[in-house]
């Protein structure tokens, strides 16, 4: 598939012929290019539409890729392109890196991979904006196709949004891959500093446009660029791991808007349309994720949720956690008629999804009815649990969303919580003082018996004590999720 992206499709001869045709009739090629862009935009729209249903999604992705191929192909005929060597090397290099990364990434590493790709897209838009400014800075005003203030405004936007997307995504990548702490980082005066940076950015944008083409414009532009990069870092710093689904979706939206802004800068409709579609879809996902946590976007972005400072001794929980041994758990599961698995980020970290599926199959053979309860924000990106369980070949009809699973929870003998925490915290429904009060949860506590797989006794990402662990009907099954379930599976196989 990669070779299709290389401009070798268009041999030097065709290009020369095209160029010749163009010099004789300049309008013809331009029309052809723009018409092809329209076709590409249509393919993107159909592609996105088909991505909305499981049956048609693979076709949708192919259609959208075809649109991209068309857009890239026709762009190579652009009159302004002087040298193809650089393009061929660049595309080849990027395509190879992208392809290798796409094939090598493990499904558990998907959130950070998506974040990284996202960041690269944002940076590319920033660079397109910069090179457009570089081009305009040396151009006589009379030779410009658009009014300079307009070009400068949209270039500034492309650089701003692209820069925030780049460093923001890098921060998300670092947090998700565990290279830096995934916790929210807050410090005194943080909001003030962020506000100051944002204000200076607005000032720099105005100054940049106002200065126009004079000598001071370039330094102001570079300053703006650096500030945008800084804001991306500062913005993601106070956001903790459990809020990552929102951040990833939002950054996805921003990468689209950055492309759209770059499209305004170079007056290219396909960039505007495609970028805007992505911006809209990312925003929808962001809103869905926020709703699943019953929090506003502002609260997710600015509250420093899940930081050490924020997680004081709220909701003192009475009682003690009662452990259960592997053998006792075997008896509990063996005699259960209905078991619900509730996976969370802990399952992803332990890479336990295959063993969970194996355990599920064993239980089914034993006559137990099993299903999986999927909370929309379980994990670190939208749909994270679905991807992991699909990788482990869990049948799709066993995955259930919030409403149906909660309706049947009281008829459930055992709820097995695997590395999930906040999404099963009953405080969300009955403790108005809890910071997560109002968040829709999976009502694991309503099952007859609750088994929680947990590595240690510490609190979850939000730093909140989970009352569920202390309940009368809850038993803690300590250990790494993978080896814990491995032990259970062996127990079943031996007997």
């Amino acid at each position, binding site marked *: 598939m990669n070779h299709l992206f290389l401009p070798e499709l268009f041999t030097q001869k065709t290009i020369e012929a095209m160029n010749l045709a163009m010099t004789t009739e300049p309008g013809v090629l331009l029309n052809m290019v723009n018409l092809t862009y329209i076709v590409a935009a249509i393919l993107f729209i159909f592609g996105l539409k088909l991505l909305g249903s499981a049956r048609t999604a693979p076709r949708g992705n192919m259609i959208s890729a075809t649109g991209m191929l068309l857009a890239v192909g026709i762009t190579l005929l652009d009159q302004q392109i002087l040298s193809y060597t650089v393009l061929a090397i660049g595309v080849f290099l990027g395509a190879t890196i992208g392809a290798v990364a796409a094939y090598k990434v493990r499904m558990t590493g998907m959130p950070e991979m998506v974040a990284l790709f996202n960041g690269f897209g944002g940076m590319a838009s920033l660079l397109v904006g910069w090179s457009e400014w570089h081009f305009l800075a040396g151009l006589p005003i009379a030779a410009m196709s658009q009014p300079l203030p307009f070009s400068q405004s949209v270039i500034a936007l492309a650089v701003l949004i692209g820069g925030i997307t780049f460093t923001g995504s890098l921060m998300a990548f670092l947090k998700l891959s565990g290279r830096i702490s995934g916790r929210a980082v807050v410090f005194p005066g943080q909001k003030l500093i962020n506000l100051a940076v944002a204000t200076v950015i607005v000032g720099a944008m105005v100054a940049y446009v106002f200065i126009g083409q004079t000598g001071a414009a370039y330094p102001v532009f570079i300053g703006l660029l650096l500030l945008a990069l800084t804001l991306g870092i500062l913005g993601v710093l106070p956001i903790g791991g459990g809020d990552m689904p929102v951040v990833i979706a939002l950054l996805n939206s921003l990468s689209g808007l950055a492309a759209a802004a770059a499209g305004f800068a170079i007056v290219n409709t396909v960039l505007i*349309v495609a970028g805007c579609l992505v911006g809209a879809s990312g925003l929808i996902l962001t809103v869905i994720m926020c709703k699943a946590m019953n929090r506003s976007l502002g609260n997710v972005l600015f509250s420093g949720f899940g930081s050490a400072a924020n997680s004081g001794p709220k909701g003192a929980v009475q009682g003690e956690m009662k452990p259960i041994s592997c053998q006792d758990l075997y008896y509990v599961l063996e005699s259960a008629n209905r078991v619900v698995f509730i996976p969370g980020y802990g399952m992803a970290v332990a890479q336990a999804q295959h063993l969970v599926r194996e355990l599920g199959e064993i239980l089914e053979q034993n006559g137990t009815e099993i299903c999986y309860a999927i909370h929309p924000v379980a994990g670190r990106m939208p749909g994270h649990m679905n991807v992991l369980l699909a990788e482990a070949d869990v049948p799709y009809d066993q995955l259930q969303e919030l409403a149906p699973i909660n309706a049947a929870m009281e008829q459930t003998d055992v709820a097995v919580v695997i590395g999930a925490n906040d999404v099963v915290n009953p405080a969300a429904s009955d403790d108005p003082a809890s910071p997560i009060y109002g968040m829709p949860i999976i009502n694991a506590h309503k099952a007859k018996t609750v088994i929680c797989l947990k590595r240690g006794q510490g609190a979850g990402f939000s730093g909140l004590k989970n009352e569920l662990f202390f309940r009368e009907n809850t038993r803690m099954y300590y250990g790494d999720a993978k080896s814990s379930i491995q032990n259970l599976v062996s127990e079943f196989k031996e007997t």
Partner: protein
Amino acid sequence: MTLTLLLFVFVLAAFLGFELISKVPSQLHTPLMSGSNAISGITIVGALIAAGRADGDTLALILGFSAVVLASINVVGGYLVTNRMLSMFQNKEKGGPS
């Protein structure tokens, strides 16, 4: 005039985008995200033009070339990883008891 037209296109695309994706099952959230992420790599079109016209200007060449590389990673990686994920969903549906 051009500006108004571009803005018009932008606004229409935004509404279209909201209409297209408002109802997506949560199973598809990740593929939708990575698939649309690949589409945002459309900025590769701008990168190609930027790199292609940077004849002799070193800074312009560096900017354009880096943009082409990064956008290509975004596009190719994004589509392939989405494809990989979706084929996982497909296999399962064929093999599953449903």
